[in-house]
């Protein structure tokens, strides 16, 4: 039976949800799972990868890797995939994985299916689908002449399995690979928030022009903190400078697919919908009953967001016992 390689990333001392989803999917397929961890301090996550389905964990944990360097990381992951003998490689679409995996695939003369939302693994096959044209249709990505099949999955698409505290994995360490020296990461500048990134968030609370100004985003922050959600915005808001561009959702912002997306004071322009219509449950709060956002929503509230949002925060606090 062929093997599966899962690229695993951590957030602090935990594995990222997207990585857990893929470890579970790989484990459920019944195939042998090899997990790969790359970066300083990642060795500490090896045991967790084992508890979540990996039989073997490949680790390249060297201070010399630095925060992120596409050169050395590509070299490290390419070596790991080759050594693993896997013919399917799974990675969750994090910022790093999206940067890295097309490079690794190219180096192994293979194709990559990115931004996938459906994954079916069998004893030797892999079947994936992805949205196209801003979610207006979907298609299967079939691997043809690809020695290794690389799949980048959107997070929040698959279930997470229960960890088995007794399961252990064999850990194999890999040395720091040589880089080309043509590119170096000089500095990492921390962002304003250490919350889960929009692209990986399980819940998002987004504000549009209806928020009126930057200060009013405070009420969305309160709601987001209650829910453990990340705050997003429409382009109108990012362009007005009320929030940084990194918070923009949509065609020229981030593509997100959380379990819950709350849109407050967002009209639902096609370019905004392009970035969030893959969300499982969409809630729209808008004072205009004809706002297009309602057509894409699961639940709709016609009302003044300045009245509804604080009440919603209150109710969630009660419901979540906070």
């Amino acid at each position: 039976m062929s093997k599966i390689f899962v690229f695993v990333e951590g957030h602090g001392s935990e594995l990222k949800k997207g990585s857990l989803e893929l470890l579970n999917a790989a484990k459920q397929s019944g195939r042998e799972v090899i997990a790969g961890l790359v970066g300083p301090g990642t060795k500490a996550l090896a045991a967790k990868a084992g508890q979540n389905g990996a039989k073997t964990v490949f680790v390249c944990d060297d201070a010399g890797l630095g925060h992120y360097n596409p050169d050395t990381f590509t070299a490290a992951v390419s070596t790991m995939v080759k050594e693993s003998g896997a013919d399917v490689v799974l990675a969750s679409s994090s910022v790093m994985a999206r940067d890295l995996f097309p490079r690794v695939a190219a180096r192994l003369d293979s194709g990559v299916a990115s931004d996938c939302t459906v994954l079916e693994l069998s004893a030797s096959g892999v079947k994936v689908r992805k949205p196209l044209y801003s979610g207006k249709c979907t298609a299967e990505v079939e691997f043809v002449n690809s020695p290794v099949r690389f799949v980048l999955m959107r997070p929040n698409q698959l279930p997470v399995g229960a960890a088995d505290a007794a399961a252990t994995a064999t850990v194999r360490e890999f040395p720091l690979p040589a880089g080309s020296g043509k590119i170096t990461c000089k500095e990492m500048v921390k962002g304003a928030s250490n919350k889960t990134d929009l692209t990986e968030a399980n819940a998002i609370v987004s504000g549009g022009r209806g928020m009126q100004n930057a200060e009013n985003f405070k009420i969305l922050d309160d709601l987001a903190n209650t829910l453990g959600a990340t705050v997003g915005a429409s382009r109108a808001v990012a362009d007005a400078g009320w929030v940084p561009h990194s918070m923009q959702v949509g065609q020229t912002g981030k593509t997100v697919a959380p379990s819950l997306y709350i849109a407050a004071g967002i009209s639902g322009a096609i370019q905004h919908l392009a970035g969030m219509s893959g969300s499982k449950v969409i809630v729209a709060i808008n004072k205009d009953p004809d706002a297009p956002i309602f057509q894409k929503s699961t639940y709709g509230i016609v009302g003044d967001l300045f009245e509804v949002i604080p009440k919603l925060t209150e109710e969630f606090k009660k419901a979540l016992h906070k």
Partner: protein
Amino acid sequence: MKIFVCLKQVPDTETRIQIKADKSGIEENGVKWVMNPYDEFAVEEALKLKEAKGAGSVTVISVGPKARVTEALRTAMAMGADDGIVIDSNEPLDTFWTAKALAGAIQKEGAFDMIFAGKLAIDDNAASVPQILAEALGLPHVTVVTKLTAGGTLVAEREIEGGAREIFEVQGPCVIAANKGLNTPRYASLPGIMKAKKKPLKEMALADTGVQASQLKTRLKDFQLPPEKPAVKMIAGDAATQAKELVRLIMDEAKVL
């Protein structure tokens, strides 16, 4: 300074998408095509860089059906690019071979300093061609770039999780994938549009770049419309009632938290 910009022509977001009867792709008749929005940032940055150096050239390059993608190349030339290369291909290519075709064409043109591209194309959201291109040419590459400073060494800032940024120093020729925030793309002026019509456009056959469409690594098939969403459930009442009911629905009906 010799600069290349890789462009893709994509359906306008507002355009209606219809699937072919055999599900092998989309019906292209009636689709309105535009330059991929991220590629506009790439063109703008290339033009700015050339202007700052006071010398050089910006060549735009695209793979696709010649008659169609030429429009996108002319748009970029109307913005100010000096010339264009069209790699004529009627076969849909995967990201791997698109990148190889671009690499093959660029290598034929001799020495260069820089290649720009958009961070992704909004049709397939793949974000893969610039990386594969960089691998094919053995060049350093920074993705999702929001700030570029070209002094002695090139400094490229890239946006990562939670608004954090990584700052890279790059030596020698490289590939830069542009993100929104890098600049504000200029509009094509009327004289620009007139001039663009006369700018040189070189044509290459796919085979000239060393690529065979029959070797595809991945192929798209079985196109489907997304499953219909059930109709929206509107919640009536005053703000307090609406909030309470919404929380109940999210927790008990949708069960997403």
